[in-house]
């Protein structure tokens, strides 16, 4: 038994159980939560270098599961998100008047499917297996997005489909060319020839669509903003991270040796644009959830802005850690923010930022959760977001890169601008609107996530150590990795 298997198998088992259980499906989280959190903890404390082949079938054919730094950071964060979201969704997706409803029934199996899919994605090194996992996640994500707006869901679906196929095309090329789709083997075998580069290109492009990097983000804001709050939280926090993790595996593990700096700069540049564009759009929004969704567009930019910084760093371990910490804290904070936003909007029965007036008095805990999440997202200390941004800025300055440094700084400021706007409205007015009390669990869920995002700010060293576990050579040592030679 190993947590590597169980982290995938358990959610799938819970999915089956939820599907069969019908009305009672939501109760399963009481079992799934502790189990998954325990498994995540187990994963974190595994000795370094733990990896195994599924069914003991050797590599060119088989599938390698591995507990590397990426998994050790993202799996627990994902679990935390899922647990919190599930607790939050407890009431929202419950049988109405004792009868099952389509949403209440289907939400729970999809939640577990997504959970299992993302865990599987974090743990595997097999590119084809990753294709299956992104489809697992996308499927559930599309359905959840469609719960809010069918049009947005369909848009998301079709675009994600194109992205998946582009990725699959790359996998096909690689599989034919190298007779393997395992990232660790490809790292050894890959040569910078046309098929390989073409494969990298199409896979990257496909994944960028799924990750919604500017200017491929068009599908994201409508879908994320329209979905029910728990779904939005999962979509923004978890779903897009999987595509990003695969990109990390491609660019820094499988093809670290053959990707040239110009390509890194291209991604970095797009990241920078995403930060600026997303932030500006977020500033312009009048609806709260759209604002948060555009914030996701902007925040994703940071993940890509880091690419050239990692590639050129003296000590790539730090920006590498930064990018992972950013992914984790964005995950926690964004989930918290969507959940809190859901509570707030429900309380005022509106969707505009201006509807939030006086909520800081009426529902202080939810506003606090939103504020804490905002702090992390804007990269203000102490928070995981700050730690990440700090390390990135440090790397950018160390390398004398003015543009990324400037973008990091400006992005942080713009972030504060759009995130504090709803808060400011919430603090406004002197009368507290009458608000029906929410169930404690629903209030606690975003608060817990946001607190975690803040708490990450105090655990910088631990996070950096974790992120370097079984890290690919390109990002491991202080030795200069020369991409592209």
């Amino acid at each position: 038994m190993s947590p590597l298997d169980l982290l995938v198998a358990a959610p799938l088992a819970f999915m089956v159980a939820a599907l069969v259980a019908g009305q009672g499906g939501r109760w399963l989280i009481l079992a799934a939560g502790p189990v998954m959190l325990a498994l995540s903890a187990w994963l974190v404390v595994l000795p370094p270098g733990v990896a195994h082949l599924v069914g003991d079938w050797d590599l060119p054919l088989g599938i390698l599961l591995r507990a590397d730094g990426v998994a050790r950071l993202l799996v627990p964060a994902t679990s935390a998100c899922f647990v919190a979201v599930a607790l939050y969704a407890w009431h929202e997706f419950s049988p109405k008047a004792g009868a099952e409803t389509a949403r209440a029934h289907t939400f729970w199996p999809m939640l577990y499917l997504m959970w299992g899919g993302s865990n599987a994605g974090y743990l595997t090194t097999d590119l084809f297996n990753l294709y299956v996992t992104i489809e697992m996640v996308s499927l559930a994500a599309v359905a959840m997005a469609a719960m809010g707006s069918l049009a947005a869901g369909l848009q998301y679906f079709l675009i994600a489909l194109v992205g998946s196929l582009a990725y699959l095309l790359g996998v096909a090329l690689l599989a034919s060319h190298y007779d393997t789709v395992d990232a660790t083997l490809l790292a050894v075998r890959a040569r910078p020839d046309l098929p390989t580069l073409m494969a990298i290109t199409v896979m990257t492009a496909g994944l960028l669509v799924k990750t919604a990097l500017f200017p491929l983000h068009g599908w994201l804001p409508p879908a994320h903003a329209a979905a029910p709050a728990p779904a939005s939280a999962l979509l923004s926090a978890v779903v897009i991270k999987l595509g990003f993790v695969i990109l990390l595996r491609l660019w820094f593990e499988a093809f670290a040796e053959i990707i040239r700096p110009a390509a890194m700069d291209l991604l970095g540049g797009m990241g920078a644009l995403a930060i600026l564009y997303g932030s500006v759009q977020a500033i312009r929004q009048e609806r709260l959830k759209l604002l948060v969704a555009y914030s996701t567009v902007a925040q994703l930019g940071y993940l890509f802005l880091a690419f050239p910084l990692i590639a050129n760093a003296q000590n790539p371990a730090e920006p590498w850690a930064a990018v992972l910490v950013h992914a984790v804290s964005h995950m926690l904070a964004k989930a918290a923010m969507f959940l809190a936003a859901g509570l707030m909007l429900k309380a005022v029965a509106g969707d505009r930022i201006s509807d939030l007036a006086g909520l800081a008095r009426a529902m202080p805990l939810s506003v606090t959760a939103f504020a804490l999440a905002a702090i992390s997202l804007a990269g203000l200390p102490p928070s995981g977001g700050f730690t990440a941004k700090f390390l990135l800025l440090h790397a950018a300055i160390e390398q004398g890169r003015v543009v990324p440094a400037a973008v990091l700084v400006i992005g942080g400021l713009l972030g504060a601008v759009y995130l504090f706007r709803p808060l400011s409205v919430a603090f406004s007015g002197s009368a507290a609107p009458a608000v029906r009390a929410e169930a404690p669990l629903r209030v606690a869920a975003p608060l817990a996530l946001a607190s975690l995002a803040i708490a990450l700010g105090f655990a910088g060293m631990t996070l950096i150590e974790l992120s370097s576990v079984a890290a690919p050579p390109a990002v491991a040592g202080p030795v200069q990795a020369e991409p592209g030679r």
Partner: protein
Amino acid sequence: MTADLAPLLPLAVVWPLVLALFCLVPAWGPRMIALLPLAPVPALCAALLAPRDQIARLPGILLDGGLVLGDTGAVFLGGAALLWVCAGIYAARFLRTDPRPAGFALFWNVVLAGNLGVFVAADIVSFYVFFALVSLMAYPLVIHDRKPASLRAGTAYIVLAVIGETALLAAFMLASYHAGGSLWIADVRAGLGLPGSPSAILWLMILGFGIKAGLMPLHVWLPVAHPAAPVPASAVLSGAIVKAGIFGLLVFLPFGVPVPLAGTVLALLGFAGLFAGALLGLAQPGGKAVLAYSTVSQMGLVMGVLGAALAAGTPAAAVLPAAALYALGHGLSKGALFLSYGLAPWCGRGWRRALVAVALLLALSIAGLPFTAGALAKSAIKGPAGPFGATLIGLSALTSALVLARFLAVLPPARAGAGRPPLLLALPVLALAGAALVLPVVLYPAVAGKAPFAATTLASLLEGTWPLALAGLLVIGALALGLKPPLLPEGDLLDLMRRSVAAARAGFEAAVRTGAVSMHDSQGRPAAVWGDNLARIEALVRDRASIAVVLLVLMGALLAALLR
């Protein structure tokens, strides 16, 4: 003197402050006015008994300051204390029906402490603190009756006082720095005499002290402020408080080293004040204003002398005692005159004649009638004044006499039914008048080193009398012809200044408004255009087909980047 009298100096300063604190207690405050005469008592004792030139250190207070009683200081301290005692007695009676006795007592005591402190401060920081106390805290005394005129006067007073304070602060900083960081007045003065010392220090000091002492173009506050205060307060203002400025000049100016430029300017301004003050005083309708201008004139005399001495490099030993003596005499006389002005309405019938007689005597003394204390003081001060100065001083007797005659002319009539004046009002007048006429004579030997009136010759007698006689003729002539003086507003230049300031301010505000309006107008609508464009871009990238196209373009870019 025995050493155990040393604490008298701090006590002299602290005791009024303690009394001031008592004034803050709501129940006691109004009654504290009765204790006013007690406040200067320790100072009076100190002036007589405290050991001379022995620094009483005050560790921990301010910047480790100290107090010292010098010879000059003792004259000033004693004179001031005496004046304050008398004025205190007078005030205790005069303000019996006042609506704000507690406030008056409070600030009276605070100003007293500051005034006395100035005379005994040993370091510049303490000096500055006391000087600020006496300057700024006198403001409430000036505006005590809250009449609009008083308030205007107070404003003029406070504005100039603050400017003076600031100038002094700057001067002290510079001086202390150039004295090697020492804070002791003695060191600072020595430093000022050194060749490398910047002249700015002197100018700033002349500015700062000059304001306080009513140096000519800076005197504008004085003729409005002194009359505005209640009578006893006017008395101390004119008699003691202006002396703080004189004392400052005495203490800090580096006598003995010729400083031609500053000295000459000071002398010119001082002597200009001597005459202009008196002439302006002639044009005043109010008795107190006349007295105030007289003060301007008299102080101009002292400062003119100081300036002349400074320019000539006369040693301090020759200047200080004479000036101190003159200041003492003037302080006591002017105090007495102010008090008598207040007393006049109480005096009916014969009492009034007695009062006029006392006032006339005092006036003549101030003008320098031979064989009076004033004449002695004048003769003493002519020494350091130099020949030119001495001539001017001689001439000034004319103007002084005229202005004081004017004072007698405008002495307020007795109130209906007034008879014997209250003892508590009359006694101080008498005591002060007595002191003013006697004390300089007593002290003259110590100052001049010779007996009073010893060297009186006919020539000198004539020299001292003819201006007075001329003045008498003029007055009699004017009375006979029924001439009236041209009436000028109090504070001559003040009105002009006030109007120009108001105009400048209005102009400035208008300019600011215009500027603000134009700033608002220049804000265009680029924000809206930006918003439109952003919305269009967003609509484009949301389209599926465009995403696919972008995807293709991106693939091309990526491939190109990878192939590079």
